[in-house]
């Protein structure tokens, strides 16, 4: 029996989780020149304004490219690491796992600041290259973790079974391990993409003149203007993320890995 008390706490929880979104959503259609709640009037001007602000359009493309590229590279690097960590017990495997988790545990601002210093020490580096390296580094542990989880669900002996039936090691891996990693890889892709696309702290330090990610350019826009354009953009981003995650969930059932 679900008690009244549980219903009440659920409603309160949802208010806290969804309330801010509802306010932003409604504010993005308001006619006031500054953000206000409850909004007065109705207009789509702020949405039009989003698409007319070149700062947002440019940084959207940068964020998109950055998220795709760094996610794919972190997956390619994460796969063999996850495989090794799950399949082999070697000396220091625990340490390796901890070190690979570090970017999750260390505050993003610290990582961003440390990387900025490091890249400055390295000398001339393109802003995009720096962003790419930074994002790949923070996504890498997610790739390793999610792919490891999908590998742990797989009986380690399936590879031996394939080999005993006549497949070479590599063929056995390709035929029986890889197909069973697909869902995990897809889950890691979605998670990595969203993590990169939404990242502020690392991008904040590594962005440069003319090369800025969308969240950072939103932040700097807010420093000068407080009109509902940001609310409209936020609404668009929430919709984008929800569509992405929902379609991945439908296709792959990724919630079992995250």
């Amino acid at each position, binding site marked *: 029996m679900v008690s009244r008390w549980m219903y009440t706490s659920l409603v309160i929880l949802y208010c806290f989780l969804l309330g801010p979104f509802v306010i932003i959503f409604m504010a993005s259609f308001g006619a006031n020149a500054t953000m206000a709640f409850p909004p007065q009037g109705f207009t789509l001007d702020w949405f039009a304004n989003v698409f007319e602000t070149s700062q947002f359009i440019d940084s959207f493309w940068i964020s998109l490219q950055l998220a795709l590229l760094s996610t794919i590279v972190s997956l390619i690097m994460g796969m063999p690491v996850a495989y090794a960590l799950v399949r082999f017990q070697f000396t220091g495997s625990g340490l390796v796992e901890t070190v690979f988790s570090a970017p999750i545990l260390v505050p993003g601002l610290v990582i961003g600041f440390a990387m900025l210093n490091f890249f400055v020490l390295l000398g001339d580096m393109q802003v995009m290259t720096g962003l790419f390296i930074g994002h790949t580094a923070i996504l890498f542990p997610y790739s390793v973790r999610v792919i490891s989880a999908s590998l742990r669900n797989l*009986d380690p002996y399936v590879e031996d079974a394939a080999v005993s039936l006549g497949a*070479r090691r590599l063929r056995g891996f390709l035929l029986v391990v890889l*197909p*069973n990693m697909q869902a995990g890889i897809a889950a890691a892709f979605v998670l990595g993409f969203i993590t990169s696309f939404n990242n502020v702290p690392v991008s904040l330090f590594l962005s440069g003149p003319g090369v800025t990610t969308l969240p950072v350019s939103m932040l700097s826009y807010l420093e000068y203007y407080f009109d509902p354009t940001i609310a409209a953009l936020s609404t668009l981003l929430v919709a984008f993320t929800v569509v992405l995650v929902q379609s991945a969930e439908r296709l792959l059932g990724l919630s079992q890995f995250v």
Partner: protein
Amino acid sequence: MPHLEIRNLTVSYEKNRPTLEQFSLGVEQGELVSLLGPSGCGKTTTLRSVAGFIQPDAGQILINGRDYTQLPPNRRDIGLVFQSYALFPHLTVFNNVAFGLRMRRIPKGEISERVTTALKMVGLEAFANRRPAQLSGGQQQRVALARATVIEPQVLLLDEPLSNLDARLRVDMRQEIRRLQQQLGITTLYVTHDQVEAMSISDRVVVMNQGEIEQIGAPERIFAAPETAFVADFMGFDNRFKAAVVSARTDKLQLHWGGDAIELRWRSRSGSPQPGARAEIFFRADNASLAAGPDALGLAGQVILHTFHGNELRYLVETEVGEFSILQDSAGQRFEPGAAVKVQPQPQKWIAIFEETGQ
């Protein structure tokens, strides 16, 4: 010449700590031999060496007289059934069974014919299009068996194939494996830690301990006449005690039991017993009986407790040579804790064992 021959196999995972030491075994064509022992005794290591997943430090594996030792596992032509079944979760039952045939580039028509036959043999022809996750544990085990045998391997290896099943299903599957093995006439090596399983399924049993063979023989022989203390213990001889030998002949020896002398068969791997030597005596709980009264013969003891087991009562009796566990018909005379009893032996079923060490 044995069909499968293991010669002086030595495998060590760590330096100077061999898991297997000079292990030799021959398995005849169509024979089912069990490797029986506690975990860490080297039975799985032996199996994985035969399969080619472990490269031995020394020794040879021969099948049909051909040296397999250097052959990679994918070219050994060996069927392997795993404890966890290791079915391919993304493939249907049909494709799981067809996997080995596809690796051998067998024509499509023949694959479908052979897979269907194999699935019929294990009674799963109706499940060809299911995924492993949609099958019960017993059905998954059957798929694993079909997958390993459809390639018509030289040798079939089974690694604790029944330990993930519940007790009743285990008995059924045991018979099923034995039937399939005899139908196919396939040379089989079967690893288990369950003595009942090994007894019921095998032509011969190899009892292993710490990487060495304790005893090889037919199940009946191993059950009735263990040659070492380890085998006796593992085969369920509940009681053991030490006694001095009164006199010894080639196959029998005498010792004192209460006021009498009793005669037992003896086993030794090192020389024959001399009068005065200490022997270790083993007997099962159902190979002795209890009696009371002034005329009763046997070794005097006192009942400590009894527990009820359906048709039988299990008594714990304290005597001057030790505590014994003794099974009695629960319909017979009952002895309450504290009662003075006499323990009467069935010496033809008792065994005396001599070992060099610990005497």
